[in-house]
């Protein structure tokens, strides 16, 4: 390392990180504010965290969000994995280009359009808007992300592993569950986590497709903020940030460890 701390470097880093994190730091700091006025510091307190847990509306919204996230991420993972498998395996069927384009189009589709079109669909088929419709909408939204993640893993998947399994007497179904699935499982898990995160922070599509009794946390926060930001919301957001941060840190440490262990193993193997 020959990094020199020139004035330019330091300024860039400070400005860059300030730009990224100053708003979040402010939010966290003010969540511990004693005062009811959000922008006036009145001393340290954790009372907003306590009152948060007594705010039935927020707690309900959290519970709805968690359920929508888990269910939609799980269904989207199954569907996305199947789509990825088809797109990488059966490369010669008619209309493959069209199909793969259509699977990935929602990636770049403006959320407003996705939300609106889903709303129209639900109205047309007479589905009452609520928990089910939000979940369905989130499956639609997140499935293509899962497909992208899983497909990028499948492209580098050594097909001879499957051939070897079949050669050794495993039927195609057994081969899939005993060989293919375990090998691509890390990609499926990260696809699930991505889908869950996307569902967790979606506001636009949820606003279009949700109905009474199925208010998600982002919707709840957004509607409360329109009546004025309360320190309670700050506290809720801080908890959300903490949960996400802890998740990311654990995942990256686990990844790093596995990588280091792998390198050590390989070096040991080369030595004999």
């Amino acid at each position, binding site marked *: 390392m020959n990094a020199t701390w020139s004035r330019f470097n330091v300024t860039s880093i400070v400005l860059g990180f300030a730009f990224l994190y100053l708003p979040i730091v402010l939010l966290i700091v003010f969540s511990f504010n004693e005062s009811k006025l959000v922008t006036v510091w009145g001393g340290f307190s954790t009372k907003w965290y306590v009152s948060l847990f007594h705010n039935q509306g927020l707690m309900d919204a959290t519970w709805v969000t968690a359920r929508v996230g888990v269910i939609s991420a799980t269904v989207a993972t199954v569907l996305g994995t199947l789509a990825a498998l088809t797109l990488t395996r059966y490369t010669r069927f008619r209309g493959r280009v069209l199909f793969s384009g259509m699977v990935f189009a929602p990636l770049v589709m403006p959320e407003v359009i996705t939300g609106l079109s889903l709303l129209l669909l639900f109205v047309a088929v007479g589905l009452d808007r609520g928990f089910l419709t939000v979940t369905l909408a989130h499956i639609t939204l997140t499935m293509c992300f899962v497909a992208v993640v899983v497909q990028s893993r499948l492209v580098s998947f050594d097909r*001879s592993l499957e*051939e*070897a399994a079949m050669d*050794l007497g495993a039927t195609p179904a057994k081969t899939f569950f005993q060989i293919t699935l375990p*090998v691509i499982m890390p990609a499926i898990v990260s696809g699930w986590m991505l889908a869950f995160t996307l569902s967790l922070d979606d506001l636009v599509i949820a606003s279009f497709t949700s109905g009474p009794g199925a208010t998600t946390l982002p919707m709840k926060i957004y509607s409360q903020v329109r009546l004025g930001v309360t320190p309670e919301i700050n506290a809720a957001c801080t908890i959300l940030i903490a949960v996400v941060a802890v998740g990311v840190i654990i995942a990256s440490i686990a990844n790093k460890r596995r990588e280091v262990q792998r390198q050590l193993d390989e070096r040991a193997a080369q030595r*004999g």
Partner: protein
Amino acid sequence: MKSLGSIRRDFAPWNDPSAKPYIQFDNVTKKFGDFTAVNNLSLTIFEREFFALLGASGCGKSTLLRMLAGFEEPSAGRILLDGQDLRGIPPYRRPVNMMFQSYALFPHMTVENNIAFGLKQEGMPKADIEKRVAEMLKLVKLEQFAKRKPHQLSGGQRQRVALARSVAKRPKVLLLDEPLGALDKKLREETQFELMDLQQELGLTFVVVTHDQEEAMTMADRIAIMDKGEVMQVATPAEVYEAPTSRFVAHFVGNVNMFEGKVAERTDKTTRITGTTGAQIVVENGAAAATGADIIFAIRPEKIRVSSKKPADALNALEGEVYDIAYLGDMTVYHVRLDDGQLVRASALNAARVSEDPLTWNDRAWVSFRPDAGVVLTR
């Protein structure tokens, strides 16, 4: 393994008309779209044979192996294994196992689970599986690595796990796709002999695909040399080398000198050839071509003697000039330009430290060879 030599010497079912073929390719064709990978090919392999498919990449040898394993179905023709037509039988019901070029070890399983995989599919009792796995680990000398994952092994160890896994089910035929391709040269040579020992010990039929002629010559009982989806010649390593039946085979295996000429005279034993410039040579081997036919005379460099004077007893002697000399230690390679312009490659074993007949660049020299040293080729 003391009797190995004699077993292998006596083993020649292909010369026995009553021997029953074990694997039979009957007019097999395989097309991928417009590309013909295997073209109307027929081939017979016998039980317990160590058979090599040799050819450059794209010659169809791997396709042939994959059809035997069941990963590809022939477009036409049929494949018989021990009398049974393999058409329509999926890979997981065929009594053959394959060792893959990439080894294809299951990365999420330990060495012992990799080896046990095929046995579990068979529904073998657990105790028997354990016994067989232990046996296999012992066979490939990996007992202390049973609990390791594939990425914790060296290349040579992975190769042995792949081998153990593919023979664990005692298949009727073991298919090996470039089994030594990923190993370095020294390890490759050792492993060649290990594979031969293993084949004898287990009494299995081995079909190996390789592009390395030395590997095929070392290991195989018989070699099929393939080109553009067709078999050019099937013979023992010695026959392939000493008696190639085509220019392609002569070129593909080892070094060779080729002379163009016409048949001047044929007796029942010998063919007299006139070269393009009038030089005459007498040959005892090879194809029977009619008088006047255009033929090729092929001869290996080590069968040619280079001397400063014309040997008195030589039937075939041609004069030229030493063009180049390469001293390789164990032997010396001479390039002699004959007076008709043709370049001849001759190699001489350096049996003595000092040559009795030293030759140097631009010396006049004679190349001579016996009538049985080369072959006549018509294609």
